[in-house]
């Protein structure tokens, strides 16, 4: 008997073989030329446009949309990449509904913003499919910069530095570059190995050497980097995962959501990926939704997101919450994990209702259990492996200005640095701005 959604435990192949490709297809089918034209026609070309202000990388959105509308999507892409070299990925993963599209005046006017994210994808795809890199390097400066971490912040920083003529070496602990773009985003948001293709395209600028399998504490030390390079940019992300701190957390079937997503992203055959029949995801952010939705798409019969506060407090946007609901994920609000029960393996999770009190969030004492053979923890990541000697603030590397750390010659950006909001687009902005700061410092 082949497995089905009803097969107990954590098993692979719950769905017919042909379902996986369909389930994990592009979340938003790309716009064709006609759709892009219709969508672009709706842009009002606002003065000092609110969408630009809302974009962490300040892409000149009205200009690029006008360039699409007038038949020059390649020029539009250049407008985007000037501000955000990972504009292709951001077009796919940005929560546009809380950024540019929320600010769009047509959202105010009609509740229907211009499809900025989709248009950005249209433009960037048009340029990238030509496999021609639109930037050239300035004359070589002879300066060398180390970038630790090949995620969005590291890549954006490396590209901008290379463009200014510096020699960049990018290190990453994993064996593929891309960081969360490659390992941490729902598969249906970056289909067809987009993360990988984007990095190859970005590296075409030249002057960037990539060394994978190397991390601080694993072949690298900050002291050595500072000695060998003229500047160091740390973009090491958040490698640690918060614990549930509930009894039974050690049982089989309790996993980190980020590990599950990474494994799924790298899986060559999704039908071989085991998934529980009853999956519970603890958390309320994008990672929780990505894990929950993908669990459903892999064939889990029941998937529940358990979040300790109300929906309005969830880190996941309304769009993401609706996406989860539309894929059959149940969202339980105001509950916290109390214990995971089972004999060696998780069988049930015990949840307790919570309430907001003046003293903070408190359990009400009322508990209930739901079946859970697989529990994903998505309650936030933590900085891990930050080198000694760096000032830490609020659990992150303390930075001032454009990523300047407490150590001279060392900058930091992306999720590992203080400030920011754990978005790809913010990481890109921080990497880019740190590169400019480093460039200025090296020129002095």
């Amino acid at each position, binding site marked *: 008997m082949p497995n089905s959604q009803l097969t107990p435990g954590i098993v692979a192949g719950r769905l017919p073989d042909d379902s996986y490709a369909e389930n994990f297809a592009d979340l938003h089918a790309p716009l064709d030329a006609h759709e892009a034209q219709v969508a672009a026609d709706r842009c009002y070309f606002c003065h*000092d446009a609110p969408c630009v202000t809302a974009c962490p990388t300040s892409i000149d959105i009205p200009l690029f949309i006008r360039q699409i509308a007038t038949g020059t999507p390649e020029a539009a892409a250049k407008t985007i990449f000037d501000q955000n070299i990972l504009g292709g990925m951001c077009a796919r993963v940005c929560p546009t509904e809380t950024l540019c599209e929320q600010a769009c005046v047509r959202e105010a006017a009609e509740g229907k913003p211009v499809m900025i994210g989709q248009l950005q994808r249209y433009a960037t795809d048009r340029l990238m499919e030509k496999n021609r890199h639109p930037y050239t390097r300035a004359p070589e400066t002879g300066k060398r910069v180390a970038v630790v971490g090949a995620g969005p912040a590291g890549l954006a920083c490396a590209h901008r530095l290379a463009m200014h003529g510096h020699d960049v070496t990018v290190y990453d602990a994993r064996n593929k570059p891309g960081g969360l773009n490659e390992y941490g985003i729902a598969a249906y948001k970056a289909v067809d190995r987009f993360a990988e293709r984007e990095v190859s395209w970005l590296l075409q600028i030249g002057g960037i050497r990539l060394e994978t399998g190397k991390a601080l504490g694993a072949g690298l030390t900050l002291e050595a980097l500072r000695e060998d390079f003229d500047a160091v940019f740390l973009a090491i992300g958040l490698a640690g995962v918060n614990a549930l701190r509930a009894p039974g957390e050690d049982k089989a079937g309790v996993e980190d959501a980020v590990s599950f997503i990474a494994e799924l992203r790298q899986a060559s055959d999704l039908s071989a990926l085991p998934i529980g029949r009853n999956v519970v995801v603890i958390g309320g952010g994008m990672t929780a939704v990505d894990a929950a939705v993908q669990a459903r798409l892999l064939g889990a019969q029941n998937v529940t997101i358990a979040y300790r506060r109300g929906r309005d407090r969830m880190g996941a946007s309304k769009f993401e919450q609706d996406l989860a609901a539309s894929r059959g994920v149940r969202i339980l609000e105001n509950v916290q994990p109390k214990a995971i029960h089972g004999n060696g393996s998780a069988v049930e999770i015990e949840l307790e209702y919570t309430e907001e009190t003046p003293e903070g969030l408190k359990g009400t004492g009322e508990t209930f259990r739901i079946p859970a053979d697989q529990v994903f923890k998505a309650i936030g990541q933590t900085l891990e492996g930050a080198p000694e000697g760096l000032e830490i603030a609020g659990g992150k590397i303390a930075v001032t200005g454009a990523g300047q750390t407490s150590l001279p010659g060392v900058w930091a950006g992306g999720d590992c640095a203080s400030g920011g909001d754990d978005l790809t687009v913010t990481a890109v902005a921080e990497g880019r701005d740190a590169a400019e700061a480093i460039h200025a410092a090296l020129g002095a």
Partner: protein
Amino acid sequence: MADLSSTFVGIKSPNPFWLASAPPTDKEYNVRRAFEAGWGGVVWKTLGAEGPPVVNVNGPRYGAIWGADRRLLGLNNIELITDRPLEVNLREIKSVKRDYPDRALVVSLMVPCEEAAWKAILPLVEETGADGVELNFGCPHGMAERGMGSAVGQVPEYIEMVTRWVKQNSRMPCIVKLTPNITDIRKPAEAAARGGADAVSLINTINSITSVNLDEMCPEPMIDGQGSHGGYCGPAVKPIALNMVAEIARNPETANIPISGIGGVTTWRDAAEFISLGAGNVQVCTAAMTYGFKIVQEMISGLSQWMDEKGYASVDEVVGRAVPKVKDWQDLNLNYVAKASINQDDCIKCGRCFAACEDTSHQAIAMSEDRTFTVKDDECVACNLCVNVCPVEGCITMVPMKPGEVDPRTGEVVKEEYGNWQTHPNNPAVWAAE
């Protein structure tokens, strides 16, 4: 309900919406479909003299310009008059008229500038039972090169001469269709009146090149690597047509000649505007060619509802109602002062008013940190540009100042009395008189 029935130069139709002489009226098949859809009348596509018919190009005949969402705003064509044999057209006209006696059926004509040619064709048309003829003095392409169409319409003496021949050789009402490709539309209209025309219709198409193919370096529409100028029509030409209709309606020489209004009529509202500026009915082409014949149903229901709301019982009550308010610039009241006003509840904060005013006008709109846009009354000259660029209709309005108030821009008290340029102290002619 308002009575939409129309009598134009004695020709009755159930509504004032006619299809203009053009491709939609070239064949019995099309015209029957038009009448079934509800059109009040048609002007049959222009007939030429007996003999081998003209030939058309076998490549594209139309070029276009578009607005947002590829909405067709302007169309041009290089099609000639009917390319079907005269006898076929006449037979079909007779058949259609017999089956639709309540609809207007006017036949457009274009034959060489010789009296014999007109003498020959008029009886043939009369024999079909058609209600009248329209003289095509308008087409700006192809036929003009052969001394017809706009080549006639650009010479008032020819218009007068040919119109006289037609009136002398036929009992049918005669409508003279005017070309806009002239400097002063009143001159050909006056000529038509002198020649005895029962009415004028306008505008015919405007000479144009709609676009250039930048790969081939050739105007569109492109025929084997070449292009030609063609007649422009559609919503884009409406303002030009409205002005020309009004010029004839307010010209004492032509004030009494009935006008059939043509040029970009797309909705009932466009029709009402033409009628208010003096048109007795309207003719439509591009809107039908864009959307099909069914649009007449919206035109009928819209005009009817509006007339009911306004208390107009018949179309005749509307004809020319706005004409007395069409003035020359020198008659406008310079003592009138208005200021733009932005309704903050309707504002979507796009800032287009600001960009337009700040960059290209009078720096009379302020923008705050939180994107609140307000009018600076001390700078605003009430130019209306902000109104026109605002995407939200009605969000920005022009509010007149009351007499006695002080205009913060000039520091002067707004006068109650009317005062125009002709009496203005800055007018050199006024000094000369003193």
